[in-house]
């Protein structure tokens, strides 16, 4: 039976010793979490939190001092498991004298793909990732964003079941970031599981269903983003009104304690305390103000992240 987790990480610890006379530095300490199958899991942490170290351990580039990783992917041997993984390193750097096309052929052949399949996949993916125009140029002429696009193409080339992406959005312009996020969402819709590290919280909030907070080498939280937000909902309620004039605002302010009052074009928004919610709604309806939207104040993931950090340290 297929497990709900695609990868399970248990008690991983990693200590680095830079010089024999220096004190060892603990990069990861008893890190335990799992990555859900068929979902996008964000791996959040500040710079130096240990995200890349853990990814390197998952990919067996470095060995952990202790702990265990269970891969619930097709195949038993590491060689077979690799066929199901697509990996994009942080700031990818490729062989500068090869062309993009040669590099992708190289990667495809390492993944036991037939030449006809490589040609077909390169054709489709390069258009989707908008790198087709540069495939016959040497990689050394590529910009940072182009390298990232080439890396992502290589990552998706063999249609892997599980994507491990280390800071995939770094080096991209805003449009590129949006495109990459859409690709992640599309790949998830195609049934892929994605584990994606970032230190930018809004990026994770935008595309992920699950999140893992890593801080100072330890996991602070693992779970669904929606659950985390529900747990941290603020008691206040927000209202957005349309064409709300100055006199009406003053009128409302005399009746209720309006908080975070702001105007954007024709829309006016504010918050009220939970005990004033019903009165405020009734008042707006009675006065025939144009109510645009209202709801309970939803905290941003970033705020929750800082809150969790403060609770732990």
């Amino acid at each position: 039976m297929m497990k709900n987790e695609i990868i399970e990480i248990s008690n991983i610890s990693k200590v680095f010793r830079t010089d024999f006379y220096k004190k060892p530095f603990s990069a990861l300490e008893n890190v335990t979490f799992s990555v859900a199958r068929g979902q996008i899991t964000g791996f959040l942490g500040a710079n130096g939190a240990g995200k890349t170290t853990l990814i390197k351990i998952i990919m067996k580039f470095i060995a952990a001092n202790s702990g265990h990783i269970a891969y619930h992917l097709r195949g038993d041997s590491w060689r077979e498991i690799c066929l199901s993984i697509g990996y994009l390193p942080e700031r990818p750097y490729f062989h500068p004298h090869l062309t993009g096309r040669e590099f992708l052929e190289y990667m495809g052949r390492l993944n036991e793909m037939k030449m006809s399949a490589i040609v077909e996949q390169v054709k489709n993916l390069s258009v989707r990732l908008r790198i087709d125009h540069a495939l016959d140029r040497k990689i050394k002429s590529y910009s940072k964003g182009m390298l990232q696009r080439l890396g992502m193409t290589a990552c998706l080339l063999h249609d892997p079941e599980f994507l491990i992406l280390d800071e995939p959005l770094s080096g991209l312009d805003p449009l590129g970031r949006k495109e990459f996020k859409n690709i992640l969402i599309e790949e998830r819709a195609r049934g892929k599981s994605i584990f994606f590290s970032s230190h930018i919280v809004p990026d994770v909030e935008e595309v992920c269903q699950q999140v893992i907070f890593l801080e100072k080498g330890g996991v602070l939280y693992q779970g669904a983003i929606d659950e985390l937000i529900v747990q941290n909902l603020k008691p206040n309620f927000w209202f957005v009104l349309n064409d709300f004039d100055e006199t009406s605002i003053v009128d409302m302010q005399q009746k209720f304690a309006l908080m975070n009052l702001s105007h954007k074009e024709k829309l006016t928004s504010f918050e009220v305390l939970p005990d004033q919610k019903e009165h405020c709604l009734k008042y707006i309806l009675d006065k025939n103000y144009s109510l645009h939207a209202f709801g309970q104040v939803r905290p941003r993931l970033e705020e929750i992240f800082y809150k969790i950090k403060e609770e732990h340290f």
Partner: protein
Amino acid sequence: MKLLIVARYTFLEIYKSRILLNVFLLSIGLALVSALASALAYGIPSRVSLDLGMGLSSLSSIGIAIFLGVGLIQKEIEARSIHLILSHSISRISYLFGKILGMLGILFVNVLMLSAVTLGMYLFLGGVFSSMILWSFLFTFCESILVLLLVVMFSLVANQVLAVLFTIGIYACGYGLEGIKDALFVRLRPAFMYALTLFEHVIPNFYKLNVKDYLLYEHKLPLGYLTHALFYFLMYAVLLSVANAWIFSRKNLD
């Protein structure tokens, strides 16, 4: 075979870096210098040309082996391009030997081009063909293989500068051993001689692979000596390959 795929693209990568263009220019330079030197030098022109050609092909092979070999794996680790390759379905050992094989392809082309020019000039200047010439070029290639394996091994455990220095040091010692053993100072001191013999068993004796002097002075070497030298090379090549594989399979690729 994954090893051959890595070898193919390693060769392609180095080839496209225009190193072979330099070798081609070197060949032309060699032909010109040989022609000039044989016209000006005192002696038999064909031998002067042969001496120059063999010296230059040996020097350039060793140079390429050391200075490209030192970054063959280390540069990929530093640039992290190794992570992308090893995340695919390939073992570390296949990757390592694929890289080395690709680099050997470049060394082979280098020796082949310079040998062809040297042999051509030698015959053009009236030299007589001898099978020893081919043995000499074969041993030049063997020598560069050992140097490549040495520099790759050192680059896996030390930084690039140290790896180059260690390799040059071992190469120099490996060449000098035979001469030092002949020195009267050493012959009179058995402890020294014993230490040098012991040392000879640890580092490769490159002098065994040097048949240029015999060729230039037209001394015949028995086939037994040549095959023994070839087996000596093979033994060291296998030992160094095993050492490389052992180190690389355990190395943390930070």
